[in-house]
């Protein structure tokens, strides 16, 4: 089969730190937490959880009022991230002669427009109103983000969303990668966005007893992947996007190439809805390496799924130990979720961005709150607990493991410059 190389030519996100992309990565490298305490005025009981929000995000100014009015917040975050990635890739926002009929979007979102429907329930059940805004349908539909992105950039090929819980956007990126590699699409916008602060969603996650507790003082250090005293995950809202492009097309137009995506594998544990199993993750990692034509010895860094749940973290390490064997002890691993939290359907995308920037900037951001505090059950790999730039970084993996048992891993390669 004719396989094309796939360049990453655009990167964009709505940063939980409020700044731009370089600022986002600099803060990750510095080990700075974006987690704060979220206290709402919800009835009957406010949300009071550590959370990662994008408080500086102003949809009206970023998108313009008419566009922002047509979107729920998940689509606003997604569209804003996509605009940033698209502007970064250097292509004009509107088609300018070259056909975009085979260009497309593969988006990831776990919750889609849940917030729009939740607002509807509030209107009906709390405020006693008898009807809803007619825009609710287009705000709430789960494919709203990808549809808006296709419209804004004039992309005439596939436009779809993937809902695979915490692996949604990793799988979206992988599927987009395959379409460009096969030649079906010249350019694909991929990424994800989610808004887990919907009241019923956050309450449901609390009920599952997997959310880390925290108050105004302790929230920034609430997420402690692989640590002995980890208490669970921290939810966050956000949007993150990448532009994947046919390598030759990117070269021909003189685009800046941030990195290369070289492999993708996805599997299902097919055993339990929420208890992860190393076997399924091992198969996903193996499939990704095989897809990329790589061996474990080629891998210089792994951005872990690392959510900081009691059950998940040791299983991920067990999978890495099985795949990397004797090499595992020298395999640098970090979980950036310790700082940017768990963005659910946007998690794979924000971590893919972090991984591409690791290779571009040749520096590994740490897992914070872990130094001197490692759970023996999570030992065996080289946990990076402070920024590291001691060796060349050529190839890296990003792991995403979802409720439902779906696993995905993406492989990226640094570009020589």
């Amino acid at each position, binding site marked *: 089969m004719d396989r094309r190389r796939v360049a990453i030519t655009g990167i964009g996100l709505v940063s939980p730190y409020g700044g731009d992309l370089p600022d986002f990565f600099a803060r990750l490298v510095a080990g700075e937490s974006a987690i704060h305490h979220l206290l709402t005025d919800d009835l009957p009981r406010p949300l009071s959880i550590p959370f990662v929000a994008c408080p500086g995000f102003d949809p*009206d100014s970023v998108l*313009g*009022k*008419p566009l922002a*009015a*047509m979107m729920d917040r998940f689509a606003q975050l997604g569209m804003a991230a996509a605009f940033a990635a698209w502007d970064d890739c250097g292509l004009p926002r509107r088609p300018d002669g070259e056909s975009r009929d085979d260009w497309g979007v593969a988006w990831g979102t776990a919750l889609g427009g849940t917030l729009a429907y939740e607002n509807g329930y509030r209107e009906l059940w709390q405020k006693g109103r008898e*009807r809803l*805004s*007619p*825009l609710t349908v*287009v705000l709430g539909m789960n494919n709203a983000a990808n549809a808006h992105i296709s419209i804004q950039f004039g992309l005439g090929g596939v436009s779809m969303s993937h809902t695979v819980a915490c692996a949604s956007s990793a799988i979206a990126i992988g599927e987009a990668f395959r379409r460009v590699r096969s030649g079906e699409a010249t350019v694909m916008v991929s990424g994800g966005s989610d808004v887990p602060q919907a009241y019923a969603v956050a309450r449901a996650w609390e009920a599952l007893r997997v959310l880390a507790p925290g108050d105004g003082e302790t929230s920034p250090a609430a997420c402690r992947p692989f640590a002995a005293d980890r208490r669970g995950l921290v939810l966050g809202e956000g949007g993150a996007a990448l532009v994947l492009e046919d390598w030759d097309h990117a070269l021909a137009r003189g685009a800046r190439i941030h990195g290369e995506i070289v492999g993708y594998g996805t599997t299902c544990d097919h055993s339990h809805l929420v208890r992860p199993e190393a076997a399924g993750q091992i198969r996903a990692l193996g499939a990704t390496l095989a897809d990329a034509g790589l061996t474990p010895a080629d891998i210089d860094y792994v951005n872990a799924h690392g959510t900081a749940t009691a059950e998940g973290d040791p299983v991920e390490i067990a999978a890495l130990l099985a795949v990397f064997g004797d090499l595992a002890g020298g395999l640098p691993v970090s979980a950036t979720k310790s700082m940017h939290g768990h963005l659910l359907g946007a998690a794979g995308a924000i971590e893919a961005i972090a991984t591409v920037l690791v290779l571009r900037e040749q520096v590994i951001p740490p897992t914070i709150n872990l130094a001197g505090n490692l759970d023996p059950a999570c030992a065996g790999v080289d946990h990076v607990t402070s920024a590291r730039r001691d060796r060349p970084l050529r190839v890296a993996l990003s792991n995403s493991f979802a409720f439902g048992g779906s696993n995905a891993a993406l492989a990226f390669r640094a570009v020589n410059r």
Partner: protein
Amino acid sequence: MASIDLIREFLQDRLGVEPEKVVPPALLADLGVDSLMMLELMFAFEDRFGITLARGLKTPRTVGDMAALMDGLIAGQNT
């Protein structure tokens, strides 16, 4: 509040349209009101005045059409 002021308020709030552009001859489409936003405008109107518009209502094309439609319905409601 006069109907045209309500239209101005809505278009400024939802679409960022400058109020001085909302004049009777202006085409609603030119101000950014597509079919979806028209539904939303009707909904806001119904909500404000506690009425329900007939389903078969002719869709207004201009700001003046819209204001006249609203004035008529409000007058009918008050008699």
